[in-house]
């Protein structure tokens, strides 16, 4: 089995990192928690004692007026009222001197400590003890607080592992760069092309590189003068002519894309609340609209920037456009951090979206420039992998930074990362690799009219299957992604008292589930040729995923739902894209054009998501809105299935059907 040895090495090194990190972090965290509990528990007891003192004073006043305890009205309510806001207190009881309970209050889900840690305060009349007030602490509260802390540490470790993987990939490829270049040259020579170069090298590689260079010079010197017909399958170059440049290593694209996407993902946990905080600055705008508009505008501008990016690349080159886009995004994020008005937020989020869209389309363009049809899926997988890794790391890191340093500081960090992404791209890629892209090649025999955008959209618009796929799958899927994940979830969790770190952890579950399920779904849908089935299953699974939020409560419900949601969306992504390419082949429209329109419509759905989500939330509640969007996805999927139940697949025996590009939300 042919395996990429570099990737094998990187995976093994990452496994080593995980093992060492887990073992030593657990040790360090356990030791730290031990220290914390020793300090925290006495403080909790002191607080409980203060609660007891307050209650005791009130009850003693009543006793001093001569009211018997067992006839004192509202005693249990007074206990409950005082206990509100003290989740560490599990139970409060008023007992007479024989131990009989006269009034009690208990936290519904709290465990009770053994009793030796109870706080007991005497209830007196005129200095004579008449009864006692007993407070019991909840030992589970400390444990739950510790679990919260461990979850936060665990998510921070996950981020560290992903960042390590990205950096390791880069370090290993950089280290093996010259070796890989020499391997490529030798592979070319084995295929008959002797125009490659043996790179200059030092150390152990020097003698091998020199020997290879000598052999190439010899063979080129000997046969360069041969006419092409005589040379046959062989290719030579004049010894003085420049050698073929080594192929661009697209692995180097991962780190810039990762850093750039991370810059935006940092703000996911708090953007809706951030907009909500600025809503009073524009009192003429309904608060609900104020919350959803920044996200909607972002998705809309992102969608519309895609065709613009393709044209600008041709004028100023990939490198120039990425730099400009990164600068735009950095300015947008920095100004978002500083703005004090909602209209300013809308303006700067639009600027950020423009930069974001241009940068991503440029990065995809780099993949297209330096890959062929045979290996393009692998190139795009690198790009998508970086995007998803940022999706996992960003919300977690952003939530932690925002909790400690505030939302503005987090946005400024994002601005810095956007600029770092551009710097990294220029450091890792040669200038020639970032230049103006070559014109797209037209496949032999392809109808030239298929390349014309207006013809392409005309054919696509008239095709019922494409329309159904867009309206009943692509658009609802994206509505759910932006409406639920980016808009409703942060607001729902914030309303329930979750901090930004917890919101970020919950959002991370979506991307984690997506990363795990997506390759499997792509592979199975191809193997079983069941793309429509996966699209329908994904829509129905989205509805099932929304159920825990709408019907259950508690912290775990949201995390579970979002994880299931990510898995459901992963079922849809690759099969949906493959269906688009199949339809394109049937309609004789270029894949690029079809995918371009597909992405545009998808993003328009993404822009609609927050508006719809907030409208539903305003009419009912956040939970009802989540369920409503789930019903939209499930119902659309069902309709899609009913429309095409029993009909043959779009293209029979077409190679385009074998395309398995695991693009997702890019």
């Amino acid at each position, binding site marked *: 089995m042919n395996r990429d*040895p570099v990737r*094998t*090495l990187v995976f*093994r*090194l990452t496994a*080593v*990192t995980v*093992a*060492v*990190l887990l073992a*030593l*972090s657990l*040790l*360090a*965290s356990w*030791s*730290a928690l031990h*220290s914390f509990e020793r*300090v*925290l528990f006495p*403080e*909790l007891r*002191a*607080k409980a004692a*203060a609660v007891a*003192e*307050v209650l005791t004073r009130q009850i003693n006043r009543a006793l001093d007026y001569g009211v018997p305890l067992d006839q004192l009205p509202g005693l249990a309510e007074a206990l409950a009222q005082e206990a509100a*806001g*003290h989740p560490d207190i599990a139970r409060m009881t008023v007992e007479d001197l024989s131990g009989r309970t006269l009034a009690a209050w208990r936290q519904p889900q709290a465990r009770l400590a053994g009793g030796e840690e109870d706080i007991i305060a005497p209830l007196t009349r005129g200095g004579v003890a008449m009864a006692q007030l007993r407070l019991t602490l909840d030992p589970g509260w400390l444990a739950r*607080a510790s679990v919260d802390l461990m979850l*936060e*540490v665990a998510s*921070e*470790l996950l981020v*560290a592992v992903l960042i390590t993987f990205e*950096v390791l990939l880069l*370090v*290993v490829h950089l*280290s*093996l760069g010259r*070796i890989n270049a020499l*391997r490529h040259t*030798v592979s070319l020579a*084995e295929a*008959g092309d*002797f125009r490659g170069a043996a790179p200059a090298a030092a*150390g152990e*590689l020097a003698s*091998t590189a020199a*020997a290879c260079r000598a*052999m*190439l010079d010899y*063979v080129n010197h*000997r*046969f360069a*003068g*041969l006419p092409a017909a*005589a*040379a*046959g399958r062989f290719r030579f170059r004049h010894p003085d002519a420049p050698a073929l440049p080594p192929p661009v290593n697209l692995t180097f694209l991962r780190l810039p894309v990762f850093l750039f996407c991370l810059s935006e993902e940092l703000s996911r946990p708090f953007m809706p609340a951030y907009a909500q905080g600025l809503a009073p600055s524009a009192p003429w705008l309904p608060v609900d609209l104020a919350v959803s508009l920044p996200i909607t505008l972002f998705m809309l501008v992102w969608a519309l920037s895609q065709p613009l990016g393709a044209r600008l690349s041709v004028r100023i080159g990939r490198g120039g456009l990425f730099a400009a886009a990164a600068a735009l995004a950095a300015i947008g994020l920095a100004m978002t951090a500083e703005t004090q008005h909602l209209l300013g937020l809308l303006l700067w989020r639009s600027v950020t979206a423009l930069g974001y869209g241009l940068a991503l389309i440029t990065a995809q363009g780099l993949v297209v420039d330096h890959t062929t049809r045979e290996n393009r899926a692998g190139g795009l997988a690198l790009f998508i992998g970086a995007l998803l890794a940022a999706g996992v790391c960003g919300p977690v890191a952003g939530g932690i930074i925002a909790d400690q340093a505030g939302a503005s500081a987090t946005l400024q960090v994002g601005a810095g990362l956007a600029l770092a992404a551009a710097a990294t791209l220029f450091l890792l890629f040669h200038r020639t690799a970032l230049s103006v892209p070559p014109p797209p090649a037209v496949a032999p025999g392809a109808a030239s009219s298929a390349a014309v955008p207006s013809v392409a959209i005309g054919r696509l618009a008239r095709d019922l299957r494409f329309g159904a796929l867009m309206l009943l799958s692509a658009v609802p899927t994206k509505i759910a992604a932006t409406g639920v994940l980016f808009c409703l979830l942060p607001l729902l969790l914030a309303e329930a008292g979750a901090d930004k770190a917890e919101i970020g952890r919950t959002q991370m579950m979506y991307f984690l589930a997506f990363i795990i399920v997506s390759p499997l779904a792509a592979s199975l849908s191809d193997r079983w040729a069941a793309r429509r089935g996966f699209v329908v299953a994904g829509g129905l699974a989205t509805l099932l995923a929304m159920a825990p939020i709408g019907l259950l409560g508690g912290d775990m419900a949201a995390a579970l739902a979002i994880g299931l949601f990510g898995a459901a969306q992963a079922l849809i992504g690759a099969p949906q894209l493959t269906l688009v390419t199949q339809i394109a082949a049937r309609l004789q429209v270029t894949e690029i054009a079809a995918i371009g329109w597909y992405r545009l419509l998808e993003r328009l759905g993404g822009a609609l998501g927050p508006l719809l989500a907030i409208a539903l939330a305003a009419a009912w509640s956040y939970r009802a809105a989540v369920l409503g969007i789930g019903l939209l996805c499930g119902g659309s999927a069902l309709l899609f299935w009913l429309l095409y139940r029993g009909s043959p697949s779009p293209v029979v025996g077409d190679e385009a059907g074998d395309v398995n590009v695991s693009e997702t939300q890019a």
Partner: protein
Amino acid sequence: MIGGGALALRAGGVIAATVAAAIALALLLAFLKFDQKLLDVAAARLGLVAEEVRRQSETGLALGLELAELEDLTGVLQRAAQARDVVRIDVRDERGRVLFSSGAGGAAGTPGDMSTVTVDAAGRFRSRINGDALLVGVRLRNGFGQIVGDVAVHAVLTARRDELARVRRELATSAAPVLVAALAATLLAVALTVRLTGGRVGRDGDEKTTDDALDETAGHLHLTLETRLAAAVAAAEQELAGSTDRRAGGPPA
């Protein structure tokens, strides 16, 4: 191994730095959360003091008295100020002017700034921390629900500061050997991994396939790449043996 030593060093350095940074960050995060929890507990405890003063104040307000007329509050404040960590308790009017205080000369005290405050989860009181100084406040409302002033509890969390310093020392003491162990374990593990991944030898003397690039990184490049290239050159020479434009000489030794 070609590039193996350097690769192991670089990869090991990256991983060791990341592991050490991650563990240090995890401990820092844990400490910050603990600090916040401790502060929340202290603020909740002092919030009870503020709430008690509020209750007694609003009893008088409910009788129709103005806030400034509640002369009994001085005694209430002095009793409440005996709680742990409390330095002073002020009752202020809606303009922030101190009307009653438990501290000496407190009535002439300057109003504290409650603009940057945190509200507790139950929404009963607000708090602001500045170093060790904690200010906890609750609003005072009259019988009509109008805000007529607030109660401000000034506290200094000396005990908390001492506890935090002790915990920080303990963490630093326990973290140092963990970090050293992390660095050592990481470098060793990486060196082993790179060696094992790059040092596979063909079993039973089998010829390594040209696709077996791992062997190429195992220090045998001169046996593989050079051999492969030489074979490719020889194949080209053989196929092009009938070409007219042949030159004298053979491949370099």
